[in-house]
């Protein structure tokens, strides 16, 4: 009976007596508290507390701080606070088990802000897996980021002959290949032709670049001004002040229309590229969110 009593007694006090256990219990408790702050959206407290732990390198072990950095980074990711999420995720050390999800999440947050080089570097520097889903994910993400950097050679190098076993990565990779083909074969409309067409008939250059409503607006501005200028010239000749006023306005809108048509060719091309790049970015998030979050 006495032995049973001592066992029960020791078991109840074990967490307070054992140093190794204390570390584990403390870690679990601190993490639970961090999640409590997150659940209750106490963002200022969460930031303050995480910083306290992360800055205390004497009392808290590296593993402990890595866990806190990852937990805080993930919570800020959920709060859609990209800057703070990256700040914490980047503090996870290289040897931590959380380094891979932290690096991928932080990398994709950089990608969302169009910092493709930095995103590529973060994912490239993350610990490598030799096989399995993490290996497939790494190749897929690096291929997608190469595409965003318009490095088609690198994309082909990574994607050609790569057949992922994971169905999500396989599907998304197929989309990436389609986008790569689109980006490489998309034809840019000639700015010179667009400008020349607008010089012949105001607005025609905009029709050529695929902007019919803007073409109509340009036509309705320039042509009436031309007619008014002509009418004032016919009724008063060069002595008519209104001829100069409307003539200047006509010239301004006519030349503006030609210039607008020239640059709209470039803008339309860039808009199409932006749309494809947006789709690529969304696609790169899909497997990471599925695997890590």
């Amino acid at each position, binding site marked *: 009976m006495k032995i049973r009593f001592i066992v029960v*007694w020791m078991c*109840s006090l074990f967490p307070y007596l054992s140093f190794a256990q204390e570390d584990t219990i403390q870690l679990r408790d601190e993490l*639970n508290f961090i999640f409590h702050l997150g659940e209750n959206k106490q963002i200022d407290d969460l930031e*303050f507390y995480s910083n306290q732990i992360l800055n205390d390198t004497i009392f808290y072990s590296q593993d402990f701080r890595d866990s806190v950095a990852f937990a805080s980074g993930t919570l800020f990711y959920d709060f859609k606070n990209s800057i703070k999420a990256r700040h914490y995720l980047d503090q996870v050390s290289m040897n931590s088990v959380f380094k891979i999800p932290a690096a991928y999440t932080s990398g994709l947050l950089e990608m969302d802000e169009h910092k493709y080089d930095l995103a590529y570097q973060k994912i490239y520097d993350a610990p490598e897996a030799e096989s399995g889903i993490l290996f497939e994910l790494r190749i897929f993400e690096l291929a997608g980021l190469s595409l965003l950097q318009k490095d088609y050679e690198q994309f082909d190098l990574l994607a050609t002959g790569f057949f992922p076993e994971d169905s999500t990565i396989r599907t998304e990779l197929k989309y990436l290949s389609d986008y790569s083909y689109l980006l490489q074969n998309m034809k840019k409309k000639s700015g010179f032709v667009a400008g020349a067409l607008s010089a012949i008939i105001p607005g025609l250059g905009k029709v050529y670049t695929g902007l019919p409503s803007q073409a109509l607006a340009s036509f309705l501005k320039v042509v009436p001004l031309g007619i*008014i200028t002509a*009418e*004032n010239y016919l009724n008063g000749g060069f002595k008519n002040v209104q001829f100069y006023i409307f003539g200047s306005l006509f010239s301004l809108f006519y030349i503006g229309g030609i210039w607008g048509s020239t640059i709209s060719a470039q803008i339309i091309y860039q808009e199409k590229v932006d749309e494809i790049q947006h789709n690529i970015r969304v696609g790169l998030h899909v497997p990471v969110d599925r695997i890590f979050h």
Partner: protein
Amino acid sequence: MRYSIISGWACMFLLTVFSTKAFTQTLESANSLFAIQQFDQASLMYERAIYERPGDPLFQATTLLSKTKCLKAQQKFEQIGSLLSRIELSVLSDSLKQEIYFQKALGYYLSDNFELAEKNILPSFNLESFHTNTQLNSVLLYTLILDELGKWNQAHLVMSDYIQNNRLFTTENKLVLKQTLDSIYEPSLQPKLRSIKKAKTLSLIFPGLGQAYNEDYKKGILNLLLTGGSATFGVYNVLQANYITAATAGVYLFLYFYLGGANQSSYNVPTKNYIKKRKYNDQLKSEMIYFSSFISNIHLSNQP
């Protein structure tokens, strides 16, 4: 068997002691940190105390109210409402509910969210324990909220009712307070807020009239000159036989200034109204705070 039961109870007792000690110490520590103005750390410790004592709504409510003080000291007023919304009200006493409603409404009021402030102060008046003799702060806050919403007559009525129904005041007190309040809320002093619709209609009837109604005379004259000038331009071109110019440029310019002037007069109304309201409410706020301290003094002198 008996020993094991005893030992089990002993363990539970010790664990209870340990856990009780933990949250009590945390709360004491939070209070000490607040006293020395370490508001960030105090706020975190209050949250820690709540975390260490789950399932106790009363403790949670009182601790969150303490945390509210940290937020107020840090001027994070916009966080107070969401913080206090975590409290489970159904199990709390009326006096605590009263305090929570008041602090929530105050948080919204201080963060300029007056609609939510009104929504949160109103339930406190429906509490059974609500006594007009003691709840001056709630009544004052409600009147200040109504002032900000431009409901000055309602604010006047709320404070008048409070004075009228307060048993601690003598008839003479009530008369003096009522007269003072009437002078504060004198209708002739209230700003005359303009109507957007009326300003626009007036500008459509006669260009510049909407701006004049909004006391924006310079813009009114400018609008009248521009609209008149564009009409003259159209007529002049008809007389010069420039019919196309008159029909296109003349009509376009006239419509541009005529309709643009009407729209412009309506855009300026809210800005002008806000300036008038702000000026009046700032004056009103200081007068009402002074008035409430006057009421408090009467309360104190009349208390048995």
